[in-house]
């Protein structure tokens, strides 16, 4: 089945220790999104790629970076995680503007 896959599902890291979250898709969608969702809050867009074009949200901290080496994969790098970065990180894909966004299951990040 075509889907959006995120690995790992749970990630524990130490304060300041870099971490990478991965997302892959078999839908062949042009757009890939990374959202951060904290408890009882709405998903907050960090950045998105339209094909290879990277679009960063103005309020996304510099601590967060992303890579999209090909259509299928997208990575979220957190260079120096702080306690406030503990959250669920959701990857989503879409064919483009005004199309459905399909979400992966998310990676729950814990920072100790």
């Amino acid at each position: 089945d075509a889907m959006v896959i995120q690995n790992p599902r749970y990630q524990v890291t130490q304060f300041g220790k870099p971490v990478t979250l991965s997302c892959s898709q078999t839908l062949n969608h042009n757009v890939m999104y990374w959202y951060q969702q904290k408890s009882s809050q709405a998903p907050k867009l960090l950045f998105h790629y339209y094909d290879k074009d990277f679009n960063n949200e103005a309020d996304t901290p510099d601590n967060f970076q992303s890579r999209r080496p090909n259509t299928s994969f997208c990575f979220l790098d957190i260079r120096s995680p702080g306690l406030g970065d503990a959250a669920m990180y959701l990857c989503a894909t879409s064919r483009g503007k005004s199309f459905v966004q399909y979400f992966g299951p998310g990676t729950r990040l814990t920072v100790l």
Partner: protein
Amino acid sequence: QQPVQSPQAVILREGEDAVINCSSSKALYSVHWYRQKHGEAPVFLMILLKGGEQKGHEKISASFNEKKQQSSLYLTASQLSYSGTYFCGTEGQGAQKLVFGQGTRLTINP
């Protein structure tokens, strides 16, 4: 700017109806509705495009009034499986992204 959803929470008995509203201060191109259960990813329900359309399937429908920049989600004869948090996501003119409302938590009791 984040759209505003109302109410913030609703508690219903199985079989009752509910309406969730989503309002934006900006001109909208589309409104998306998603449902998220605790600990899971959001699941798509429907998209409404500008043109004042109304959509629905089974007992869940929605409307979009582009002049008022408002959308409403209608849940009819609610089932236990409808429980979760409902988010509207709004897409502005020229944007390729969604901004999600703060969510409406729906609880359905037997």
